């Protein structure tokens, strides 16, 4: 399981974006995370939910990886941009 304190030399850095109601709940719209190799988008969500205000997010939110919708078991690699998406309301 990924944690924010993992700082081994092989850890990967990802940028996590928050939007709309989720950004309001956490009081921020970008979080930089370090994760162990083999981490998934679900691990990103777990780490974000551990932050102050993060517990208000659903445990299985919509997510995107590098501008595409993705499942929670999608792998994360260094440099990825992961987004946690509130329910969409366009149109």
């Amino acid at each position: 399981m990924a944690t924010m304190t993992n700082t081994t030399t092989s850890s990967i850095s990802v940028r996590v974006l928050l939007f709309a109601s989720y950004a309001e709940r956490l009081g921020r719209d970008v979080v930089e995370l370090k994760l162990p190799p083999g981490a998934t988008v679900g691990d990103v969500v777990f780490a974000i939910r551990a932050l102050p205000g993060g517990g208000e997010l659903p445990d299985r939110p919509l997510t995107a990886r590098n501008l595409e919708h993705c499942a929670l078991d999608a792998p994360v690699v260094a440099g990825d941009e992961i987004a946690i998406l509130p329910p969409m309301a366009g149109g």
Partner: protein
Amino acid sequence: MAYLTTLPIDAAPLVRAVEAPDRGGIASFVGLVRNQHGGRAVLRLEYSAYAPMAEAECARIVAEAESRWPVRVSLAHRLGALEIGDVAVAVAAGAAHRDAAFAACRYVIEEAKTRVPIWKKEFYADGTVSWVDPTRAAERSAAS
């Protein structure tokens, strides 16, 4: 063609973009800001987006429609502050035959509403504000 804009949307150029001498039918849809939602009086709203993904997702939806039907499609979505009656979204689908035009137009608006990362904050007459969540049952029945 798909794009996001903070400027007012005019449907006419979207329709012209899908015209061609061999296309006999253009189906289009325009979504407008309504003055009420779920029984509450709405004064105005704000659309925000994960803009680079929203652009990419709009382009993917247009490409899907153009591969499923023999059509050309245009799609535009407004961002920022909107007033009642403003155009929020516009779709046009041009085809030789109207069946394809209607099917593609409907597909694009349905997909856009569920897949494009855009969020809507509504400002109500009673002074309250909320983020719209179409996945809540009460809001599904209120959606345009």
